[in-house]
């Protein structure tokens, strides 16, 4: 688990750039990932946290339908949008 390497801004940035998630700003940031135009996954990114605690990190991975190690890869960059779509379509 590489939660110590990333902060909430990184998660939001990757979500926006890589997965084209449009975040809505409420108490937290929330956004939907669309698979073939259908809202398929919803992620919550807590506001105002510098680091991401372990269970919050796992919960965000779970919301995206990813294992923690795949979530690490998504944030680190090797996991592309196409690969992500392949994982959640299984």
């Amino acid at each position, binding site marked *: 688990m590489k939660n110590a390497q990333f902060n909430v801004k990184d998660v939001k940035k990757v979500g926006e750039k890589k997965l084209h998630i449009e975040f809505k700003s*409420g*108490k*937290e940031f*929330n956004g*939907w990932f669309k*698979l073939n*135009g*259908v*809202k*398929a996954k*919803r992620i*919550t990114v*807590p506001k105002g*946290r510098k*680091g991401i*605690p*372990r*269970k*919050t990190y796992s*919960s965000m991975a*779970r*919301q995206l339908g990813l294992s923690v190690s795949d979530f690490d890869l998504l944030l680190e960059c090797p996991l592309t949008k196409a690969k992500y779509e392949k994982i959640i379509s299984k």
Partner: protein
Amino acid sequence: MTSTATNMSTGNLAFLDDWKNKKIEDKEPDTASVPVAAEEGVATSIELEKLISYIASDIKRYNSVEPNKNEAAIFKLNMLKTKRMRKPLDVIIEEDGEGFIARAVDFSLFGYGDDRIEAIDALKSEIESLYRDLLEDDNFTEEWLNIKNFLKELIVDS
């Protein structure tokens, strides 16, 4: 409970003796706080009041025990911030880093906060936010449509 009430109303205080003897067997008696029934078998109202307050303080002490900070606890959420619910929702609350995370058991939603109350409040906001999103349209996967139906049955719209 019924038999206890009957015993009390008929003046049969054998149950008090049993309770007193059990306490003595368990540990040294705390004579300052344990009420004692009258030897003749008739307790005064003062003694009964002492017994009731003793039991009440025991219950209070039991309920106020702070759970171990590291332990996950299951909590029944009965209300959201602005909406009521028809039945309670199970929530797991546990320590996470320097704060706490509250997670819904039935779907993948969480709230984070510096303490348990803040985490639960954040989760309540998340549930309401998700509910609003789901009511916007029906462009969701089957999984989310099921959650939408679940929340529609759970949440009282007012």
